[in-house]
């Protein structure tokens, strides 16, 4: 059991909702559902030279999902697609109970307590899955 699942950092990230909103002119866009809980994330990305110029998300989901999306809104701008993939992989690693890989976004470590709660993995993964899908477009 983790008392820290809803630690301050996660709650603040979710509240801040970095990058929330739409990007009507984005060429890369993906929507991902979690059929188990009905949550839904849309991510829209504008890339230039393989670097993120802008990223916006709309999240119908829980706090964990919103916090994950908020990390993307905060950190993705300026990152290249390799970095996005590396950070998506970092989320998987942290959920698997592994330490945060080097050179990835420090905020992802806030999800460490979620590793105890398999049923919530997809909440955290959803925005990063949307990024992966958007990059495939």
């Amino acid at each position, binding site marked *: *059991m*983790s*008392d820290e*699942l*809803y630690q301050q950092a996660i*709650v603040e990230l979710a509240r801040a909702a970095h990058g929330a909103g739409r990007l009507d002119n984005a060429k890369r866009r993906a929507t991902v559902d979690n059929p188990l*809980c*009905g*949550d839904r994330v849309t991510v829209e990305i504008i890339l230039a030279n393989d670097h993120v110029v802008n990223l916006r998300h709309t999240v*119908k*989901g*829980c*706090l*964990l999902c919103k916090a994950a999306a908020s990390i993307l809104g905060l950190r993705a701008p300026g990152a290249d697609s390799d970095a996005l993939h590396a950070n998506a992989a970092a989320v998987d690693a942290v959920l698997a109970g592994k330490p945060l890989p080097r050179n990835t976004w420090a905020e992802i470590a806030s999800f460490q307590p979620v590793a105890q*709660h398999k049923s*919530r993995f997809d*909440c955290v993964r959803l925005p990063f899955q949307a990024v992966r899908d958007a990059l495939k477009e």
Partner: protein
Amino acid sequence: MAFDPEQLRAEFPILNTRLGGKALHYLDNAASAQIPVAVIDAVMRHETAARANVSRGVHSLAERATEAYEAARSIIARYLNAALPDEVVFTGGTTGAINLVAQGSASQLKPGDEIVISELEHHSNIVPWHMLRERIGVALRALPVTDEGRVDLAALDRTVTKRTRMIALAHVSNVTGAVLDVAPVVAAARASGAQVLLDGAQAVPHGPVDVRALGVDFYAFSGHKMFAPNGIGVLWGKREALARLAPAFGGGGMIREVALDQISYADPPRRFEAGTPPIAQAVGLGEAARWVAALEREAVAAHELRLTGRMLDGLADIRGVRVVGPQGLQARRGVVSFTLDGVHPHDLCQFVDDRFAVALRGGHHCAQPLMRRFGLAGTSRASLAPYNTDADVDALLQGVAEARRVLV
């Protein structure tokens, strides 16, 4: 009041579980209730003294197993006030029971025939009828739900028609706790020549039900919600109703005679019990029914109602909380769904579990049409059993208040 929930708790080892050092407050009884020692023991005794396959066997263990299985059928028949034990079909659960009726009616239905359900049904009382719609072309009509979370019986008149063949409704809603007023439904059905099926999953845990007094044709429920093992449930059907039903599944035990070119089926209930049934689970269900029936029903109901009131009052005092369902205590059970503004039900449930060891359920509760009716993605739900106490309710209220402080 002689009834003492604390005393009851001693019969449920799991209620003494500690989660992260905190005492468990189990308020997820509508999903699965816990199992008393008496039921566990009955199952164990069966498995270690009478385990064998049923029917046809003439050795001593097989005779014991068959007798135990049929005795369970008789106990359930009494629990439901059925006319005959053979009106009781053992299934895997409520879902299995409703599917037996839906699939078994296929050959009696034609395109354009109508099935009436409601907007508050559990998916298990929607999808089986939808499958008939896809297979046969019957129409599915839904009674609307009032703002209080009840089936709107004022709409019976315009919804039930001469083409209605079946009205299938929850006896008690697993989301709002509302108790259905069955009499007008049965009257409407009789007037139109339809049958009535009640999904009793949330009703039977509260004590014996009188299917004959209700006047319905079919009644379905699950063991695991009434203090019995998983994997067992019941379809009760009026003798004539069962006799008209075709079997949904084929296999051993449900046949009269099998040749490669021709097969005839056994009479109910065996016709619907293809394959080796969940024998030990049926024995456990029988014991659970006995256990429930032995509780002081009035006292337990009063206890649960008082706790429900305490919950409703407490929730009303927390800013941002909205109860989805009857706000009062009339015609409702201790199932309370609510939302907390700005907090996702999964977060709320996880939070109160983590911090207060309060077990709730969050989400759509297998009732997506009802969620849509209220414009919600989901709710958090607390549901009571006789062993719940003021301490459980207080932990819930404290947890929700704290969630509002931390998560909003």
